[in-house]
């Protein structure tokens, strides 16, 4: 049970090619979110969206350690998780725009993207609402006798929800293969967690005997190495784990939260120095695993893919009216 903030993993677990793939995944999420923001501000996207920019290392670092048949549950700030687990850009944008070609035929939208083919059991509009679902997926794995793992993503806001603690207690009692990943981006909506979370974050899980660790969520090398350890452990019957990944949402709570009066520009500037894409790029260049021009090329590639996906979604059809009462019941 460690409560260190700077686990130093073996950084050479992935080779340069895989690190560049991870970089591309993060860049794809970043470009997706920037495009979502643009769709919102140009009034082409209904509703709102909660951007994952700044937190990319967590989703990618963890999902790169998962198999396609492993499960994730996601949150209202879930685009990054969905993409990191393998969702396609075009169906994602189509869903954000309420189109029939979207992952949920336009019935879910930004906060409810689910894709069982990549093991994504759904993003969730209720803070902490998927803690039980991920735990149930772990129970299902145990009963079916497979070696899948379920990862439950949630933010520090979910630390206020009792369901999380009920779930972790049962996961530890029954040694379920569930990894609880707290993306501690410091704020629940507009309130800093110093005002909402008493005591120790990792201590909450440690109290149940759950393996609990706080790590640097901006450094994908740390996230990935830690994820591999706890995921392998869970896959081999070692039970659940709880990771607090310290991070920061670079944008506001949602696309419309522009002024961010609840935090200082200085604080934002400090965290911006720890941009997860930049950190990985710097390390790969410094350790001579990649030339600096490769990152520019990746950026251009993903931006082009995102642009194509946005155009696809903009041109896609809205659902017909007859769709409205379909899928109420299976």
């Amino acid at each position, binding site marked *: 049970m460690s409560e260190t903030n700077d686990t130093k993993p073996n950084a050479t677990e992935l080779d340069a090619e895989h690190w560049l793939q991870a970089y591309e995944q993060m860049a794809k999420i970043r470009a997706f979110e920037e495009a979502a923001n643009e769709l919102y501000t140009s009034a082409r996207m209904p509703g709102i969206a909660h951007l994952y920019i700044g937190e990319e290392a967590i989703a990618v670092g963890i999902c790169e350690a998962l198999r396609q048949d492993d*499960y994730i*549950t996601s949150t209202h700030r879930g685009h990054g998780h969905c993409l990191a687990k393998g969702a396609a850009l075009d169906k994602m944008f189509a869903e954000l725009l309420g189109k029939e070609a*979207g*992952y*949920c*035929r*336009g*019935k*879910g939208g930004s906060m*409810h993207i*689910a*894709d*069982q083919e990549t093991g994504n*059991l*759904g993003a*969730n*509009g*209720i803070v902490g*609402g*998927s*803690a*039980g*679902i*991920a*735990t*149930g*997926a*772990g*129970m*299902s*794995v145990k*009963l*079916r006798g497979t070696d899948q793992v*379920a990862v439950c993503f949630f933010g520090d806001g979910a630390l206020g929800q*009792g*369901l999380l603690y*009920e*779930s972790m*207690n*049962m996961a530890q*009692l029954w040694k379920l293969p569930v990894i609880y990943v707290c993306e501690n981006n410091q704020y629940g909506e507009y309130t800093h967690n110093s005002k909402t979370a008493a005591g120790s974050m990792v201590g909450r899980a440690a109290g149940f005997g759950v393996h609990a660790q706080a790590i640097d969520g901006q450094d994908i090398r740390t996230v990935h190495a830690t994820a591999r350890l706890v995921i392998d452990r869970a896959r081999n019957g070692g039970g659940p784990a709880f990771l607090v990944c310290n991070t920061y949402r670079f944008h506001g709570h949602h696309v419309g939260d522009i002024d961010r009066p609840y935090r200082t520009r200085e604080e934002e500037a400090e965290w911006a120095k720890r941009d997860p894409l930049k950190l990985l790029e710097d390390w790969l260049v410094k350790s001579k695993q990649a030339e600096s021009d490769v990152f520019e090329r990746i950026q251009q590639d993903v931006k082009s893919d995102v642009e194509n996906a946005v155009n696809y979604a903009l041109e896609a059809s809205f659902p017909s009216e007859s769709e409205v009462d*379909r*899928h*109420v*019941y*299976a």
Partner: protein
Amino acid sequence: MSTLENGVIRSPAVHAPGERQITFGQAILEAINEEMARDESVFIIGEDVAEAGSVFKVLVGLLDQFGPERVIDSPISEAGIAGIGVGAAITGMRPIVDIMFGDFTTLVMDQLVNQAAKTHYMSGGKLKVPMVLRTTLGASRRSAAQHSQSLHALFSHIPGLKVAMPATPYDAKGLMKSAIRDDNPVVIFEDKMLYQERGPVPEREYTLPLGQADVKRAGDDLTIVATSSMVYVALEAADNLASIGISAEVIDPRTTNPLDTEALVNSAKKTSRALIIDEGYQQYGVTGEFASVIADGAFYYLDAPVKRIGAMNVPVPFSPVMEDLTIPTAEYVVETAKALCG
């Protein structure tokens, strides 16, 4: 036509003479037992369901038969086990989540209302939640306000959920089996006062469709729609009404969602009067929905406004003299029916 003989509902249309009789509780256990034997993906989780065989002793023997992997004693964490049910259901299992008292379903509201009920729809039909939540309803056990409520209306309100409330052992077994096989979340409310009620249940395999009402007694002058244990109240009232020349038809919807609206409307068209009895609080209860369905569908056939009787709009009191005032009784049903037919 069904009749109430010594407290047992008997329908010649369904039941063979000399058919075996078991209790409502045994019927529930048989249904779960058969479905667990038939389908390995079925498991049950809840407080005291395994070692204790549930607080009402309905599940005694299940643990021995299927072992602790599939009959799981949980912590007192209603929301947590409901969430586990949803997650297990989405990933290929058919969980039965046992919530000891219907009053405790308030603790699982998010998991049922926001998660289970909406997952299929929100995912555009890709994910399914084949889960059963079994719980209880009904007052008169002198258990006071937090162990006596009948909260089925809360769940009947929610698109995406199905709600069953069996009255007889036969219905209990058939509806439970269908609920377990259904690909949607189904909430089953069992009246805890009915567990010892006996009734005919065939030994052969059968299921009952969700959404099909049952005529518990045929009649011509008045339709009484009644749910769960109120079916017995209605049948007793119908007997008394028969003695003064009023022929009452007793219809049991058996499920409130889906609701067999056709059966309710057709009966009201035939009798031209309708009275509805339910043990949920009368205000905003299922009685209002039933009354609206009948008023809409049979308006030109009705000779009187549709009347409804629910539980009194007060928290269920402890003291027996007060508690008994809150629940619909056969006497009150008879009085109301006489006024309707007057």
